[in-house]
């Protein structure tokens, strides 16, 4: 097994042609993890025995049932890693925090169950910023994660290990969580495809909560086609999540010449790195050449988005972390890292009586204004095209001393979470230093098909997504 087919369809083709067995496939990935992850630190737990057992079971199934298994199990043999926020029954789940260092969940999250039932093979739990707080992968209590394209650089965050593991071919698919950009930004930094679905489309049940009104269960893949196949399984009703809406996905692109793409002026202003601007505008030009109409749009409240996000998000974080009070999970509150403590204090402050109206309530009102901005924009355009991060990947340690500059790196991603709309990050090229740069498409709620259709057109005509780091 030298050259792997880097898509779900390709893997299925190889398995059908018996180029390798599921067990051989899993062993291939395990060997790569063993060989290369020491320096990247993308996994916190590798579930070797668990994965091999599942693989043997699938090999038997393939023998006994033949190719029907690919219909019964749409993600048959898809080797999958989960950000260590997804609860996995019997398998340690830490949220990359010392507080949960020894926590073995009694149940699995809905997404894990759905994917395993569809044929995914769980190969391990990925490292991330502790509690998903961060945009660089440096906040993990179990050591920072490195960018596979250059180990001096950060891989983005907080779903750092998930992005790194897909980029490095440690797995075919990895699940992440996106509260303010935590799937799209590491996807962009590592050169993979990352989806943040519509809020309320994928169940949050059984995933360690960061900020409940913003958290979206997304995934990272090598290409758009895989992203679509995974969402097909993860989306939809869950009796345990009251916010899930059963909605048929919309937004198919039948004729690209009838599509209007909006460039939010407020996302291309000061603070945007020139290399990023060039690559993102090149992507826009690509769609224009295909026949789409490109127009400028206004999202006038964008300048408040980061402020609103850093009020609502810490408020919910402080509330959600209250349960780790030292009574039930073995380790005391001293085990919280600095970033978690910072957010707990900030969140408790903005909710305090006397300050609630000034901060939380005001932020909630501006959030409504942001929603109106997007409603107005989508009255004019079908989809928005924007940068993911204002800069290409930065060096490890570059921003750790200045949390505020780290927060500002979220400026182009947080709005989608505050508004609840989906976003798809796609590789758009490389910086002078050979590091990936991405762009994102943002559509109306439940219009994921628009993102997938346009993303597939882009990837059919470019090869940024198929380039891999040399490890």
């Amino acid at each position, binding site marked *: 097994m030298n050259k792997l087919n880097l898509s779900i369809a390709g893997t299925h083709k190889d398995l059908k042609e018996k180029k390798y067995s599921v067990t051989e496939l899993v062993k291939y990935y395990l060997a790569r993890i063993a060989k290369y992850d020491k320096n990247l630190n993308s996994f916190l737990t590798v579930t070797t025995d668990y994965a091999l057992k599942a693989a043997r079971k699938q090999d038997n199934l393939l023998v006994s049932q033949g190719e029907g298994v690919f219909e019964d199990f749409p993600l048959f043999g898809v080797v999958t890693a989960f950000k260590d926020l997804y609860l996995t029954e019997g398998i340690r789940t830490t949220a990359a925090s010392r507080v949960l260092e020894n926590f073995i969940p009694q149940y699995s999250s809905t997404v894990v169950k759905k994917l395993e039932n569809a044929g995914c093979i769980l190969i391990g739990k990925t490292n991330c910023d502790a509690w998903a707080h961060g945009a660089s992968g440096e906040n993990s209590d179990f050591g920072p994660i490195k960018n596979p394209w250059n180990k001096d650089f950060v891989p983005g965050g907080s779903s750092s290990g998930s992005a790194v593991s897909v980029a490095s071919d440690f797995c075919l698919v990895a699940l992440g969580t996106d509260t303010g950009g935590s799937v799209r930004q590491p996807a962009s930094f590592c050169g993979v495809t990352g989806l943040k679905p519509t809020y309320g489309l994928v169940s949050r*049940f059984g995933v360690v909560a960061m900020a409940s009104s913003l958290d979206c269960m997304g995934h990272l893949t090598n290409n758009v086609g895989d992203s679509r196949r995974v969402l097909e399984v993860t989306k939809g009703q869950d009796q345990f999540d*009251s916010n899930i809406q059963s909605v048929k996905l919309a937004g198919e692109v039948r004729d690209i010449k009838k599509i209007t793409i909006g460039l939010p002026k407020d996302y291309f202003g000061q603070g945007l790195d020139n290399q990023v601007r060039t690559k993102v505008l090149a992507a826009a030009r690509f769609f224009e050449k295909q026949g789409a109409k490109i127009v400028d749009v206004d999202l006038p409240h964008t300048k408040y988005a980061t402020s609103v996000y850093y009020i609502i998000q810490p408020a919910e974080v402080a*509330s959600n*972390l209250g349960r780790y*009070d030292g009574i039930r999970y073995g380790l005391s509150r001293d085990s919280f890292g600095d970033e978690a403590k910072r957010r707990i204090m900030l969140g408790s402050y903005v*909710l*305090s*009586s006397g300050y*609630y109206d000034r901060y939380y309530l005001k932020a909630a009102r501006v959030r409504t204004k942001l929603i109106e901005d997007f409603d107005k924009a989508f009255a004019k355009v079908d989809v928005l095209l924007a940068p993911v991060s204002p800069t290409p990947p930065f060096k490890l340690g570059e921003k750790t001393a200045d949390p505020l500059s780290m927060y500002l790196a979220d400026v182009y991603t947080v709005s989608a979470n505050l508004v609840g709309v989906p976003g798809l990050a796609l590789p758009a090229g490389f910086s002078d230093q050979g590091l990936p740069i991405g762009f994102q498409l943002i559509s109306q709620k439940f219009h994921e098909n628009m993102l997938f259709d346009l993303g597939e057109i882009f990837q059919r005509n470019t090869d940024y997504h198929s380039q891999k780091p040399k490890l």
Partner: protein
Amino acid sequence: MKTKLRPVIGLEVHIEQNTKTKMFCGCPAIHYAVPANTHTCPVCLGLPGALPKANKLAVENILKLGLALGCKINLYSKFDRKHYFYPDLPKGYQITQYEAPFCSAGRWEAPDSPSVNITRIHLEEDTGKLIHKTVGGQKLSLVDFNRSGVPLIELVTGPDFETSEQVTAFLKEIRKIVRHLGISTADMDKGSMRLEANVSVSTTKKLPDYKVELKNINSFKFLAKAVDSEIARQTKLIHEGKRIAQETRGFDEAAGGTLSQRTKEEAKDYRYFPEPDLPPIRLSQEYVTGLKTNLPKSPSETIHELASWGVSWQAATIIVKDRARLNYLYDVRSIDNSVDLKSIANLIVNKNVDKKYKDPNDLLASIVKSAGNLSLEAKQMTKFINEVLIENPKAAEDFRLGKTNVVGFLLGKFMQKSAGRGDPKEVSKRFFDRLK
């Protein structure tokens, strides 16, 4: 100069619902005399990643109570998180209602009491329970989460009571109503009804600027005693010209008075904010109207109804207090409306036949079987019929004028004489035959 003093009392009542499942998960809500931590799941243990799902019946129940107390039902309502740390609160917050409770602005009127404003009635989840125990020589505080997440109603009144008698009368009425609506057992000794009173004494027409909270009181009797002794204590302090501290006090039976538990120097900060895991609840007016239309009759209406069916006033008063028994009696009547309900009601109250025969059909079958107990010898029956006809000559006349329904009246008189014995169908037939 002696000031005219006026006690000011407001109440907070917690009522635990008797729904089958908990407020936000599918665990059984029953927690009394259940082995510790057996009725739990990720949701009510507050495990990472768990999410609440609201219990529809619990919402319906609180709306019924609100309607029964004449409250305004808020068609837009939502849950909020109330934060505090305590070992029996596994999430670090309680899901409750802060800004938009289901019911507000109700009013309770009683014949010989001032009317009471119901400020609000809201829905929340109960907490777990701490058990302090010595295990293997070690003093431990253990947590039992069986009660965690049980649906809890909180009812808050205005500061509208002036005496402990008014308080007790109101609370007894509330207990009667919730039992009658079938939404709680309201057993004080099992903690399914919990009482708190805010007591102050006013020297003017206005409300005083302090209040003393009386907490952790588990019977009407002790609450009345606590209120009385608290009014006396505060009155004495006022006469002595002393300031009364804002604090929480409990009732000490041995001392016969209230004791300070906690001084409230500053208000607790619960950092409320809207619960993001639960979408706001929007009720339609039609739904609320439907609930109102189908509300069960009030306890006194029901007693009158039972009495009209021949049930003794005494038995009716007892049965009305127990929703299950009342339903049982209704079931009996719906199976056979000619049955002697008075005797059945007496059997339920005195012999617990509803416990012996879980299915009312079985009870009726057993009565038919042992008909001897209820039936009369023919001679006896003839004797009673004769007596009734002699004592009510006007009835016989009415019958001849075509008012055949007078037989029902005669049957009633007969049953009074026979103490409920005798097959009503047969007796009616005999009256018919005699009068024809």
